[in-house]
């Protein structure tokens, strides 16, 4: 791998590139899905290729190939330089990179049991036991389970002398129970919706989340939702469960903190950001207990790594400190545009054949002092607890959001008194975070979001979101069905 990357960089610089970096990536993946008591999907994949990014005359060029012969590598490198020259014809201001030391390192993400050493039979045994338990619940019309495992070996080399060898193992598992009657469709998922929980971890995470042990409870709740009353429409106190809050952070803090968005570079598709550079250090984003960080050093969370895809060392960057907006997710070229001395290390690409863009790392809400979820509910006289995302939408500057969750729970005098279906809440980002009056100190989880979409052509990315349940006042709820 090292020879391939070095040859690509050498050819690019010999062809006129002022800077070049190469990523050689080998990826192995395994996805297993069950529907009912059958295997509905068993897809194994492997991928191996080279992506080379260059600067020439101040413009970017990127080419990628799986032809890793000497001829194929040279062809891709020269093509990247040609593309960069074409880019330079459309530049008012040449690209400049913020400085970064040329790191040399070898790193592996945390993993106790390599999931690729566990047999397919053992994996299916867990999934079928889970499915069987769900299907035993009367009223469940469809039971689905999912496991995905990815092993990725990535080598980064740059013309500045960086040589970084990283190996990632990512694992995920989840279940979904669906219940349908003549009038309604409801579902419940565990540990989270959209494939379950996702971590930089090995097979050990599957045991930790215990799908079979949670299958009956979740399945029963999917059926109960059919008969549950509709979430009412009103304004009041809400408690947002940890996984839902993770997605709230993703949409209303993570995306607007991306500096490329704030600078208008993503305005054609993903959108811009209300967090414009003039507000840095001046905007009261949230209440004083709100502290949000972009923490790539949390290596067990899905957005963790040691170095990003332009060789910048992982960092923990404060985004919101004591409620004030103080930082961005940045790259070497965008950091330079607003005078940040060093990139925050947020450049990543979906694969060897994608050009890196600014992506969330682990955007996490620091725990508060409110104890456990049970404590928070006990200290709430009237409200609704929202659990497990079902639907999410936010405007292109990241102000107006609306989320629906699979389940809502009515809280009265410190106790849950009933289930609510079609639960939804919405608001304006800064008003919402400024209404936060309690964050749990327990029940904190680094949730993984594996499907963050951004870029043109669209790329998906693994991001992480540490969160504990939190309480917000004067929030509009029930609006989706009102």
């Amino acid at each position: 791998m090292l020879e391939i990357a070095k040859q690509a960089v050498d050819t690019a610089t010999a062809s006129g590139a002022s800077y070049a970096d190469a990523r050689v990536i080998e990826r192995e993946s395994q996805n297993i899905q069950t529907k009912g008591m059958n295997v509905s999907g068993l897809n194994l994949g492997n991928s191996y290729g080279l992506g080379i990014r260059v600067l020439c005359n101040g413009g970017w060029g990127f080419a990628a190939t799986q032809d890793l012969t000497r001829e194929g590598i040279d062809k891709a490198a020269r093509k990247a330089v040609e593309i960069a020259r074409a880019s330079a014809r459309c530049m008012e201001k040449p690209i400049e990179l913020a400085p970064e030391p040329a790191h040399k390192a070898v790193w592996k993400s945390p993993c106790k049991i390599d999931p690729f050493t566990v047999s397919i039979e053992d994996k299916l045994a867990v999934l079928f036991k889970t499915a069987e338990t769900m299907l035993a619940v009367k009223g469940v019309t469809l039971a689905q389970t999912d496991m995905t495992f990815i092993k990725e070996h990535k080598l980064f080399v740059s013309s500045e002398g960086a040589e970084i060898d990283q190996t990632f193992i990512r694992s995920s598992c989840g279940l979904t129970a669906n219940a349908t009657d003549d009038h309604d469709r409801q579902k419940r998922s565990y540990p989270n919706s959209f494939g379950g929980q996702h971590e930089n971890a090995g097979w050990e995470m599957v045991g930790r989340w215990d799908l079979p042990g949670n299958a009956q409870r979740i399945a029963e709740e999917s059926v109960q939702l059919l008969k549950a009353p509709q979430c009412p429409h009103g304004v009041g106190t809400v408690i947002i469960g940890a996984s839902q809050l993770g997605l709230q952070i993703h949409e209303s803090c993570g995306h607007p903190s991306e500096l490329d968005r704030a600078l208008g570079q993503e305005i054609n598709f993903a959108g811009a950001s209300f967090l414009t550079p003039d507000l840095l250090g001046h905007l009261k984003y949230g209440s004083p207990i709100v502290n949000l960080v972009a923490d790539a050093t949390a290596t067990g969370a899905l957005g963790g790594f040691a170095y990003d895809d332009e060789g910048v060392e992982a960092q923990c960057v404060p985004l919101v400190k004591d409620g004030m907006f103080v930082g961005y997710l940045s790259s070497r070229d965008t950091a330079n545009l607003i005078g940040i001395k060093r990139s925050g290390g947020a450049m990543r690409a979906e694969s060897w054949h994608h050009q890196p863009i600014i992506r969330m790392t682990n955007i996490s809400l620091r725990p508060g002092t409110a104890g456990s979820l049970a404590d928070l509910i006990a200290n709430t006289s009237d409200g609704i607890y929202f659990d497990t995302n079902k639907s999410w939408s936010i405007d292109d500057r990241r102000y107006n959001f609306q989320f629906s969750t699979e389940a809502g729970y009515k809280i009265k005098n410190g106790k849950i008194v009933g289930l609510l279906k079609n639960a939804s809440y919405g608001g304006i980002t800064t008003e919402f975070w400024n209404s936060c009056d309690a964050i749990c100190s327990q029940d904190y989880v680094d949730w993984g979001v594996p499907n963050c979409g951004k870029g043109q052509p669209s790329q998906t990315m693994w991001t992480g979101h540490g969160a504990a349940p939190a309480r917000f006042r004067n929030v509009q709820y029930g609006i989706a069905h009102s």
Partner: protein
Amino acid sequence: MASTRLERQQIVISESESKRLIDLALAHAGKRVDGVEVTVTGSNFATSRFANNNMTQNQAPERVSVSVRVISGKRQIRLSSDDISQSGIEHLVDNAIKAVALLPEDPTVLPLPALALTEPLARDVDFNRYDRETGEMSADQRSDSVNSMIEAAKKHNLSCAGTYGAGGDSIAIGNSNGMFHYHNESACECSVTAVAANSSGWAKVHNPKSIHVDARALAESAAKNAILSADPKDVPPGKYTVILPPSAVVDLLGFLWGDFSATSHIDKLSSLLGKVGQKVFGENINIKDDVFHPMQAGARFDGEGLPRTVVTLVDKGVVKNLVYGRKSAAKMNAKPTGHGVSEPSPEGEFPVNLVMEGGTASIDEMVKSTDRGILLSRVWYVRLVDPTTILLTGMTRDGTFLIENGKISYGIKNLRFNVSVIDMLNNVLTLGPSVRAAGEDSFPAVVPALKVANFNFSSTTKF
């Protein structure tokens, strides 16, 4: 001015080379399993991205992938790889044959389709969807188009952001029953946002031929909307008559298409469950799936190599048919329609060549006939809230206008909507001509602009 000094791109993988790889895999598998299906895909689609009148990214990846499905009795598995060397393909086949034996039997697994079932329909149409100028466009030619958009925006003192992409994709499928199909097509996609001080405008086109993509005209259109929507005012949320351009219609109706999949009925997930044969939509709604339509794209065979057929989905508001893959057809005693996805898959099938019949009204005419309403330019972040009625939420963006007394009064701040697709298609007042339209939340389709009554806006935002 286009330059030709750079090398053109080449077709990433030809029909003969695709067949060679497929035959290699089939020969290596021999008779060790009951059936082998091999798919080879290739892409060299290149994209130039720009913002603030500067190129921000410019990428031209090339990729060929091979995937192998093996069937052994009532077991099946799919393995895929980017390694298309002889040893890589042989390794892939060996691994698939080894892995399939580890699976439990699945009574729903079918043998590979018989050769007769996979013979393409004879259709008297020109099915060449590859345009060399588009598929082999150079980086310099893309830069020329980008510069033309930047110039157009600058002329109006606006900045400009967007993409200009072009290239080709191919797919070949073959199996151990002797079937082989190959399809390649070109595509050009251009989208542009013109940015003003407190407003913006957007336009997008996706077409198999770059000659039909006028980048400068798109930028002019985006600039016009940015200027027209300057200094947007608040309007209260509520129910309005709304005019939706085709790109918005694509993004909203994209959430309906999957409910015509027979598997979604078997799984009791579809909003149309039990409604085949019933009038579900307004009398003026007619939708079919037609891969042969002149404004459509894509291959004329499905994920198992079956020929795609034309299926009437909605006729005068009545749900007429579903689409079937082989597995769902067997379960529902129907004939496969050629809409199967690659097996194994939980989804089964999907209609991908949607054509909604249009009318004759232009958007200007729709505006003239509206006393009070809202004209949208684009919908954004559309998501399914409730599958029972296909209740969707999303936002407007890039130019939203209040219509009063048959005229556009002024630009308004963006609004959030919560709308059921089924309700929406019962409230269509007027249809424009059907065109090939591209949005962001769904794939391109042939749809008209629509004027819709009682479109529910639930809240506003700050810009």
